[in-house]
C-alpha cells in the first residue's frame, strides 16, 4: 500500500475528473470499468500465461511474438493497455525488468506493482549492479548465465518468460502456475524447482 492521499490531492483529482467528464472525455462508467479491470488483474494471470507457454508450443510462440494477443487469448482485456512484450530466459541469459524513469509495469497481467519496484533503490541499483540486487533476492545465477536488464522506458510493458525448472515434467498447468510468482515474472527470482521446494 502507498501512503494515504493528501486532502489536496483528492480535491485536485475530483476537479480533474469533473473537468474531463464535463468535456465528455471520460464517463463515470468508463472509470469504474477501468478501476475494476485493474483491481482484477493479478500475477496469477501472468503465471497462467507462463504455465501455458511451458506446456503449449503454439501458445509459447504467440506469447513471445505478441504478448497482448497472448493475454487476450487467456480472456484478459488489453483494450487501452500498452503493448505487452515477453522476454524469454534461456540457459545462457536471464532477464530482469525495471523502469528507471518511473514505475512502468505490465499491470494488465500482473496487477499493481509492488512497492519495491517503485523504490529509488531498486530502480537506481538494478541497472548498475544487477547481480548484487538479484543476490539480495537469493537469486544467484550460474557463471555462464548473462544478465539482461530491461529498462522499461517508453510505450511497452515487459514480462519475463522464465525457464521451466527441471523435474516438472508431466505437471499440470495449475501445478506449474504455483511456481511462477510475481517476483519470477519481473525476473528478480527464479521458479523454485520441485526438489528445493520439497526440502523447504
Amino acid at each position: 500500500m502507498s501512503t494515504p492521499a493528501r486532502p489536496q490531492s483528492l480535491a485536485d483529482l475530483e476537479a480533474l475528473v469533473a473537468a474531463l467528464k464535463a468535456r465528455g472525455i471520460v464517463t463515470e462508467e468508463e472509470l469504474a470499468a477501468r478501476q475494476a479491470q485493474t483491481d482484477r488483474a493479478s500475477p496469477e494471470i501472468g503465471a497462467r500465461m507462463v504455465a501455458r507457454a511451458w506446456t503449449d508450443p503454439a501458445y509459447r510462440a504467440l506469447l513471445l511474438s505478441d504478448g497482448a494477443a497472448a493475454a487476450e487469448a487467456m480472456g484478459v482485456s488489453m483494450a487501452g493497455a500498452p503493448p505487452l512484450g515477453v522476454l524469454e530466459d534461456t540457459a545462457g541469459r536471464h532477464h530482469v525488468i525495471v523502469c528507471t524513469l518511473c514505475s512502468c509495469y505490465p499491470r494488465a497481467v500482473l496487477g499493481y506493482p509492488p512497492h519495491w519496484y517503485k523504490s529509488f533503490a531498486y530502480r537506481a541499483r538494478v541497472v548498475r549492479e544487477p547481480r548484487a540486487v538479484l543476490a539480495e533476492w537469493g537469486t544467484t545465477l550460474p557463471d555462464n548465465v548473462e544478465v539482461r536488464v530491461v529498462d522499461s522506458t517508453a510505450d511497452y510493458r515487459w514480462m519475463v518468460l522464465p525457464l521451466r525448472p527441471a523435474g516438472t515434467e508431466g505437471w499440470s498447468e495449475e501445478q506449474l502456475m504455483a511456481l511462477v510468482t510475481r517476483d519470477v515474472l519481473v525476473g528478480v527470482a527464479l521458479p523454485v524447482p520441485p526438489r528445493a521446494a520439497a526440502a523447504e
Partner: protein
Amino acid sequence: MTDTPAPRFAPGTRVTVRDDWPERRGPCHIRTPHYLRGRPGTVQRVLGAFANPEDLAFGRPAPKRVLYHVLFEQPPLFGEGRPGDDVLVEVFEHWLEPAAERQAA
C-alpha cells in the same frame, strides 16, 4: 507527418544515444535515461511507432516516432559489472544517431 514513419535504423545497426540534456534548458518530459546519453549501443528490433511522449506530456500535437529496442553493454555504463551482461532499453529514433566510431580496417 505520416502515421507510421519508416524506421531509419535496421536491427544490428550500431547507434549512439544523443549526448543531449534538454532538462538543463527548461521544463521537459523525456523518456531517455540519463545513463545512456552519449553511449553506443546496437539496435535489436523496431518496436513500432508511438506518439512522441515529449509532446504528449505538454498537450502538444504529438507526431509518431519510431521506437527501438536498443542493447547496451552493461559494464561500461557505470564502470562496473560483469562482461557479457547488458541493458535493453526502449529509445525513440530522434534520440539516436549512427555510431560515429569506425572499425579500423
